[in-house]
């Protein structure tokens, strides 16, 4: 259904099952992301969106299913291998290191990059993209506002120079104005050629940014639609999201 359907997807997730201990959380999630796209996963709280991202980034092991990235099987790889492969995961609730400075946070985002000069160059690029972070370079991340922390979390994720950026609820807890800024940033990042997989509660914002969206419901992918179709079909949305 996308114009790039002829090319193989950069990321394909096939029928993954994931459990927390003995409690199953995902019962078959499948979707594809093509190069240069912004794809959204939407769905009610507890549907399994964050769990899906955690499985891709290697924080959680699969019970079954397959994950392929750029043609390689990355299922059950440890997180450092997944980062090295080119996937960055910006987690829900930001998770910046509170007692480290903004600059230390950024520097550690490029932990796998051995060259100091290269890391510094990437930090320079982060400051260029997020001027407010440059002003706060020596400030402890824990003292930043929620919006600034979110910007830092995104900037840190970009420090590994991923080809696929996974964002989990980047607008959570932000004012509408801040949320708009965050989505502008996401558009700009995508504009620079980074493929984006976006998880959002704020459906209308998500559908605004994304070209396609998958609806996740109780651990399963229920529907894949062009974002525009979902946006213009409130009935469908309500049916899936129960809102």
């Amino acid at each position, binding site marked *: 259904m996308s114009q790039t359907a002829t090319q193989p997807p950069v990321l394909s997730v096939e029928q993954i099952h994931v459990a927390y201990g003995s409690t199953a959380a995902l019962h078959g999630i499948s979707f594809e992301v093509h190069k240069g796209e912004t794809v959204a996963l939407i769905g009610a709280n507890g549907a399994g969106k964050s769990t899906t991202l955690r499985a891709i980034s290697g924080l959680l092991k699969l019970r079954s299913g397959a994950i392929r990235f750029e043609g390689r099987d990355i299922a059950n790889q*440890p997180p450092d291998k997944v*980062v090295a492969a080119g996937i960055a995961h910006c987690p829900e609730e930001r998770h*910046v290191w509170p007692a480290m400075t903004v600059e230390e946070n950024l520097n*550690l985002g490029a*932990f*796998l990059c051995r060259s100091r000069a290269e890391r510094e160059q990437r930090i320079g690029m982060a400051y260029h993209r997020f001027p407010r972070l440059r002003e706060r370079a020596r400030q402890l991340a824990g003292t930043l506002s929620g919006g600034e922390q979110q910007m830092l979390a995104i900037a*840190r994720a970009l420090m590994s120079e991923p080809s696929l950026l996974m964002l989990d609820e980047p607008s959570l807890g932000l004012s509408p104005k801040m949320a708009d800024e965050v989505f502008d940033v996401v558009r700009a990042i995508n504009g620079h050629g980074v493929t984006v997989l976006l998880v959002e509660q704020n459906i209308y914002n998500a559908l605004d940014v994304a070209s396609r969206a998958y609806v996740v419901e109780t651990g399963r992918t229920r529907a894949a639609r062009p974002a525009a179709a979902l946006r213009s079909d409130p009935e469908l949305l309500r049916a899936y999201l129960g809102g």
Partner: protein
Amino acid sequence: MDLFLQFLTNGLINGAFYALSALGLTLIFGLMRVVNFAHGEMYMLGGVLGWFFTTHLGLNFFLSVALVAAVMAAFGLLIDRFLIERLRGEGEEPGILFTIGLSIFLANVTLLVVGPAPLKVAGAVPEGALFIGPIIVTKLRLMAVAVGIALMIATHALIRHTRLGQAMRATFQDPMAASLSGIRVARVHAATFALGCTLAALSGMLLASIYSAQASVGGLVSLKSFVVVILGGMGSFPGAVVGGLLLGVAESLWGGYVATGMVDVIGFVLVILILLFRPQGLFSSSSERA
């Protein structure tokens, strides 16, 4: 007054070793949330190994320091990799039970191998006193303290300025974020445990060059290290240093002016006071984490 200065000096010297040992404990607790009851046995092993290398094999003191550090670091890595790793994420109780078991095991194996007698580590310098104004210090003590301070500075630099140190702080503050940045959290844990064991062992070796090493000393050392960590604040680097010096000075003054026989009690008096008036310790660990 002169006597007071002498007691103070003695206290600061002992305190430096308490600090070094407690630094290891506070790192392991602060980062890994493992309450290491075998810490005193690591200290004891440092002394016994130090005796083995210097007195038994006749090796140079500084070479022996390096060997003890290498052996104990490897030992710590193995224990973490093969034993503590299995308990990760299971809460604190399994770790406590495990380290208590480990302490009993290590103490008794050592007793079996080298026996209960005190073992002397041959120091780097000959016996002999230095007079600094009214204060008398042996060269041996001065030397040992200098090495201890150098080790503390090196540890601080490691934590502040190296990639490993950054990875340790990141893992301590947010392990998930550390994983997602490509830090191998399991390795950071192993390195931390190894560092903690090494610091305890070197403290034990240095102090055994002044006094002596003994297989049975571990329990008391663990207790004193816990006292220092509680005084300073769990997981706090400056807290361990200040807490160690404080305990050393308090013991020395108590022993000098009040009662020699009950020196080991003073630490617990301090702990009770601190728990009553400042339960988070002198330095709360949130500001200057590890």
